[in-house]
């Protein structure tokens, strides 16, 4: 079992999720099942094959340093759960 309950708790914390005891137990089992399934990939021989980080080939895809119109503030703030006239509003962060 590569994933234990401590790891699940840690991931939950990083994801800002609060889990019940039952959920912790449940996700430990489920995550292990998923990882075991993915383990199958390790049976494939990958010696001499370069790591692939990108789905497409290519490099140096750039844009020139020229301003393209931004969107209006109203459009930017429209989907925010909380806002003022000018800002996004979030719970107090220290």
């Amino acid at each position, binding site marked *: 079992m590569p994933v234990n309950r401590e790891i699940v708790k840690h991931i939950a914390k*990083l994801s800002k999720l609060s889990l019940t005891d039952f959920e912790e137990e449940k996700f430990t089992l489920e995550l292990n099942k998923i990882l075991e399934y993915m383990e199958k990939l390790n049976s494939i021989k990958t010696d001499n094959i370069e790591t692939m980080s990108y789905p497409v080939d290519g*490099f*140096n895809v750039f844009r020139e340093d020229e301003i393209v119109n931004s969107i209006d503030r109203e459009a930017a703030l429209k989907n925010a759960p909380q806002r003022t006239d000018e800002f996004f509003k979030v*719970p107090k*962060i220290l």
Partner: protein
Amino acid sequence: MNKYEPVIGLEVHAQLLTETKAFCGCSNKFGDQPNTNVCPICLGHPGSLPKINKKMVEFAVMMGLATNCKINFKSSFARKNYFYPDLPKGWQTSQFDEPICSNGFLEITADNNLRTIRINRIHMEEDAGKLIHDETGFSLVDLNRCGTPLIEIVSEPDLQSPHEAFQYLSKLKQILLYLNISDCNMEEGSLRCDANVSVRLTGDKSLGVKTELKNMNSFKNVEKAIQKEIERQIDIIEEGGKIIQQTLLWDADKEEIKIMRTKEEAHDYRYFPEPDLLPVIIDDVWKNELMSKMPELPDVRRKKFSNLYKLPEYDCEILTSTKELADYFESAAKHSDDFKSISNWVMVEVLKFINENNLSVNQFRLSPINLGKLINLINDKTISNKIAKDIFAELIERNIDPLIIIKEKGLTQINDSKFIEEIIDRVIKSNQEQVKQYLAGKDKVLGFFVGQIMKESKGKANPQSVNELLINKLSLMKN
């Protein structure tokens, strides 16, 4: 020798002076209305695709070349994951295992020692937005800064004192300004510095446990905060305690160090390759093209000033402190070959005016040509040094050929010794009391006579001739 020695490494972030952000076409301007320079890419809207700003890459390469780094043929971007409202995507686009530059070094001078400080790496990344904390129990988010291109310059732990850290930071700033790729304004946050600090028994080879100091918003504060942290660590060790790995915040108002978080709470960034951005390849052609665009850097220029203009080390240091000042000097040097005089005028009068009026060199109105002409007029004895200084403010104001002002005011220096002698005779005649004092051995009254004579001539008499003729006349009276 001190019982303990500090080991210091710096991580320096510099905002780049591009027109647009790192991965979108929003303006990179500081100080605009909140949330007006934003778009779906820098707001982290689902489905938006980033695109690399070519200028950011070029600026990073230039900084690498200027700090003797290896420019890596291939570099790539990675996601640094963390959850904070100033970063709407939930990750910072950065570089991880394949930075754009590595293994460089900088030479600094601290306490008369030439020291080589190794640079581990320079990588590109984006800045986060700005949080404003109001009284209502909420935080307000402005995402104008989110996505601003940064380079992070990471030194090896080669710095051995707070002063060396200060010198290293100053040198980085000087280079960034020479390259014109960052405005390096620490108060506005366009240059930021974190320090890793540990101490060990002097001569020890192994490193002590380090802490990370953040939030030092001026050069002076960097030096002060590191000093405080070294003292804090030594106190703990002396009392038998242990240093724990912590992130610390510098409180500039109270000049205190505060604990921000301990290692257990440290971030787990889960870096992985950024699949939306393809790698960057920098071949020799591109690298050489960028190298040819770079200006002469401070070290090279300083040596040139010493070799070509034969100036003392101190002058070279001051004159090449900024590119603008060095350019100003070199332009003036095309119009007068008395390089040492130009240097003196630039270092004293020009810098005084600039500092008193809070100007930059580029805002200084007097052209280098007219400064050169002024110096030539002193050297060919048309005017005295004193007159030159007297008219300097007006010369700056009008920025014209100094000869025009001199003619308007009739200030041409009097070198005619017969005329000067007449004045000397008059002054001696009407100050018999001082003559007696001089003859009795009180040499100091000489200054009084010179002052009177210069006043009589309205400052126009050649001071050197006045001195010589006066001493001659007085010594004749001795016998």
